[in-house]
């Protein structure tokens, strides 16, 4: 009749033991370290061909020498500019259209089917059109970015605008809030959590499409540098640039999450962590 926990404990106990915050942080660090070690060791042992996949140390030294060139910073600035403009336009369109679609039932019914049709079309399918219209300049890539990134924002904002609580609405009406006052003080704060989610998704998608446009269309930026590095056989350099795009994506996510915490401190998704 021994129902003792200790007797059941196998040597793999740590697999199903819940972790505390410190343990979780260490597990995360350990994961990154193991990944980096693999990147270094696998090419050296010949498990992957070092000609196509140079060891991490080479990639890092290529990165360091890249960082010293003005071309790199120019490309980074170009990518960030394209991304920023594209994201800005997408957010503006998404917010306005989302509020209209979410807030006005007639507009919602009028646009729903069309949006459901247009939304799944991959933005990259418009590359030939973009090139025809704008050549290889920034505008061509902006077209791709906006087409891809506008949906996340639009859909989220329109969900948010439909989510205004009926009791909150009645409260606003019974206290005779003017229409614009209700929009700013009731609708916008309700939409905000949705908009922040939409913004995070849009920001990631916009970055992906910015790099894609540079890779395929040849709009100036990091993507174009990657193509040049590949064509000139600078394999380590190519990986170095890929790493940079990875860090860029990470940075975008971290910054948006920090913003989220500030703006939505009152929201259920954030406030639990803040309490104590």
């Amino acid at each position, binding site marked *: 009749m021994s129902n003792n926990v200790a007797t059941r404990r196998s040597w793999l106990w740590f697999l199903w033991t819940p972790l505390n915050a410190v343990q979780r942080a260490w597990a995360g660090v350990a994961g990154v370290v193991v990944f980096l070690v693999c990147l270094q060791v696998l090419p050296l042992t010949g498990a992957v061909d070092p000609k196509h996949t140079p060891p991490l140390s080479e990639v890092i030294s290529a990165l360091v020498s890249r960082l010293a060139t003005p071309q790199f910073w120019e490309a980074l600035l170009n990518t960030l500019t394209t991304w920023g403009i594209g994201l800005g336009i997408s957010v503006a369109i998404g917010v306005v259209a989302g509020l209209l679609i979410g807030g006005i039932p007639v507009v919602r019914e009028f646009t729903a089917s069309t949006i459901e049709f247009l939304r799944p079309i991959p933005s990259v399918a418009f590359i030939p059109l973009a090139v025809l219209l704008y050549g290889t300049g920034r505008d061509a890539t902006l077209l791709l970015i906006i087409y891809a990134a506008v949906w996340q924002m639009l859909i989220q904002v329109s969900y948010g605008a439909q989510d205004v609580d009926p009791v*909150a609405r009645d409260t606003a009406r019974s206290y005779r809030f003017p229409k614009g006052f209700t929009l700013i003080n009731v609708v916008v704060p309700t939409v905000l959590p949705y908009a922040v989610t939409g913004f995070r998704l849009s920001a990631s998608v916009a970055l992906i499409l910015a790099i894609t446009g540079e890779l395929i269309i040849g709009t100036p930026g990091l993507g174009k540098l990657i193509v040049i590095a590949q064509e000139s056989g600078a394999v380590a350099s190519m990986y170095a640039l890929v790493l940079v795009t990875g860090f860029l994506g990470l940075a975008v996510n971290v910054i948006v999450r920090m913003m989220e915490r500030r703006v939505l401190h009152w929201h259920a998704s954030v406030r639990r962590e803040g309490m104590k």
Partner: protein
Amino acid sequence: MTISDSVSVQSPDVLLQVRGLRKTYEVRNDPIEAIRRLTFDIHAGDLVCIVGPSGAGKTTLLRSLAGLLTPSGGSAKLDGEEIVEPPKGMAVVFQEYARSLFPWLTIAQNVALPLKAQGVDRATRAEKTAKALEAVGLADVAKRYPWQLSGGMQQRVALARAVAYEPRILLMDEPFAAVDAQTRADLEDLVRNLWHRLGLTVLFVTHDIDESIYLGQRVLVLSNRPTEILDDIAINLPDERDQLTTRNEPEFARLRAEVYERVQQAKAGRRPGDAA
């Protein structure tokens, strides 16, 4: 005062005048008669409770009086003015306090928002907000958020918001149905207390017979759907009420038995004009 003044208004202190109010919902050409005929007066300074069986159309009635719902016929006038939209000088306290307060605003900001909507200047807003929070005993939580407070405290905030608005009439829609019994007793005393001190006019809708008697000077008993007023019962209890002694008085017991019987008859389908 001229002669025409005294003639035009028969009873000068009638604040809310309801005459033959009807409400029929049209659901796919299938009319549902919610309110058949309601006629009653509320005088300035009254505290009137409306009690009825569940499904008696209490909320429909309250929303019609609040101008949130357009009646199908008859009239409701506040101070002689037909109610067609939420009227000036009326505040509504809803049952769902958590949804009626705005989670992105602090307690003080919540209370001040209707004043801000009216264009009241900052200093006056702050002063009225502080006073109202003081009146409901929540001066010390002004800077906290609604979701950090208990249900009873949240409903106090909603009450403070209504009081700060300085309404001529306060409508309350089963405001304490969702709080525990102990808190409920405290809130009932608070309503009596505010009514006394601030000279409010209160229309209090509830399904709780004891609550209606404890609070009101008058209790209107509603019939089943379609709603009519079955009885208008005067509550001749001493003005100074106390949870323990008032509820133990023989008159309270007698009134409870009377109202209880009327509500039972209402459930059984008695209509006005039938023998009680």
